[in-house]
């Protein structure tokens, strides 16, 4: 059975860095996880109370809630290698 990926991307306003991150994420997902992922974008400027729940410090932060284990990737996700390893899509 294929794994279902639940991804959350925390951003703070539509900054260029946020947009870069989102675009990078979408690109990787389309390449590697087609049809088995969902992306939720949370803008902390709109919902600041959500920052505490996932222990968000840095912006942007990508949180992989499912499948376990929980992983966080911070930064603009420009390094594809690191993102894929971080999401346990690609083994080192």
């Amino acid at each position: 059975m294929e794994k279902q990926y639940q991804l959350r991307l925390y951003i703070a306003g539509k900054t260029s860095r946020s947009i870069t991150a989102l675009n990078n994420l979408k690109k990787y997902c389309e390449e590697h996880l087609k049809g088995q992922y969902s992306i939720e974008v949370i803008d902390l400027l709109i919902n600041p109370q959500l920052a505490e729940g996932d222990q968000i410090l840095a912006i942007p932060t990508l949180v992989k809630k499912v499948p376990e284990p929980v992983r966080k990737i911070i930064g603009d996700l420009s390094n594809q290698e690191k993102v894929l390893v971080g999401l346990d899509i690609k083994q080192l």
Partner: protein
Amino acid sequence: MAKNTKIPKIPRTPKLAKTPTGISGLDEITFGGLPTGRPTLVCGTAGCGKTLFSLEFIIRGAMDYNEPGVFMAFEEKAHELATNVASLGFDLRTLEEQKLIKLDYVHIDKSEIAETGEYNLDGLFIRLGYAIDSIGAKRVVLDTIENLFSGLSNQGILRAEIRRLFQWLKEKGVTAVITGERDGPSLTRQGLEEYVSDCVILLDHRVIDQISTRRLRVVKYRGSLHGTNEYPFLIDEDGISVLPVTSLNLDKPVSTQRISSGIRSLDTMLTEGGFYKGSSVLVSGTAGTGKTSVAASFVNAACERKEKCLFFAFEESPQQIIRNMKSIGMDLQKHLDKGMLQFYASRPTLYGLEMHLVAIHKAIRKFKPKIVVLDPITNLITVGSVSEVKSMLVRLIDFFQSEQITVMFTALSLNTIVNEQTDEGVSSLVDAWILIRDIESNGERNKGLYIMKSRGMPHSNQVREFVISENGLDLVDVYLGPEGVLTGSARMQQMLQEETGAVLHTHALSRKDREIIRKRTMLEAKIESLRSEFESAEEELNKVYVEEDIKKAVMEENRKKMTELRKGNARDILPTKKNRK
């Protein structure tokens, strides 16, 4: 021209606003508190009380100054913090429910974080901003923000972001406390002091000779005066108390009221009945000379006057003192039961000198005594050097004076030569100094007491013998004979001798008296015999007179009879007489 030159008026800039911390003593050192609306760095080694310091800042703000606060913890979880401070009597949960405090635990787990590319810490800013806005916080604590460095690897970004964070906090106008771990020569591991430059407080926890002392120092306080010394502080059930060690002025109120020393004969030596109220008295002497007894009788007298006393015992336990004093006719237990007397016994080695000072301060502020006894101060030497003890006592005396508390110290002289032993150097600080010394002669040891000094009053210069009996303490005049000072049995002997002399003297006197009486009796007897002699002579003379009179009367009678007889008729005599008339 000088007339026309006008000195431009320099606009008066407002003084730096300060936020009181509510931590007892710290606001005195900083003359009001931490700089309002600016970050303050509190740094120190592990276990020096940084977290407690910052937490108390928040709690006091919420409870006493109605300033809500946010506590952002990077180390301990919220419930751990709540448990930790519950032991200090602070109820974090209730404060949190009242929206006076917000705890936010920031967890960073390096194992679940991967970094790729550029990022910033907006998430943290937003969290903090949200927390501040949700309760209208005026105070913020970040404990310990350096933990970010262990969780995130891009130092360049972190440093820039932390700098931005402090700037942002300033803009927010919150008074912030940032804690930092001290590491080696630099104040904080990551050099936070570079970013926080307004106020830096250093906490320290030192162990010298196996005794630990916590100290606090204001390293820097931009735009404000502050005490620069290292101040000892204490963490106990009431939180942190910092002790401002020296007050700079000598303008304490003084009293001319006298209070009894509890030994009547000593009061008379001091003229007008005792020590000045609010003065400091030192009782020094060699071992076993009765210093504690002097102190106890001072306390006993005060308790009987209904003045509260606090007895700091550094040598004996309270029970021991009560038992021992009972043997010389003093019942301290009843004062203890009435609450007039309180003992505070602690081993000097329990903690450092400064801690003792803080503890003494606290005990005094709590009990508010009029009389304080420290018995003996010399035992404190075991936890500090002579100069340290001296500086502690200076501050203590200073404190007592400002509180108008009469204090009696006892000190053990280790040296029998009086002038060489200066009793921890406090003898120059105290107002009165009573010295008890051994007088050894004729194979016995007796105690001599004299007043070395007593400021501002005439006092006896005599050495008195100090006698402790089951009836209490007393001073007896010593005998100054040709062989020197006589004490003990020599004095008794002298007294007996004088008593014999007195008896002999009285005897001689009474003999003389009797002689006089005898002489008088003799004389009186003589007078009596002379008088009777005179009386008999007088009688003899009188007899002649009487005989003469009788003879005269008889002759007269006879003559009349003769005349009558010549006239012949006795019956005619009377009518004849009648006729003649």
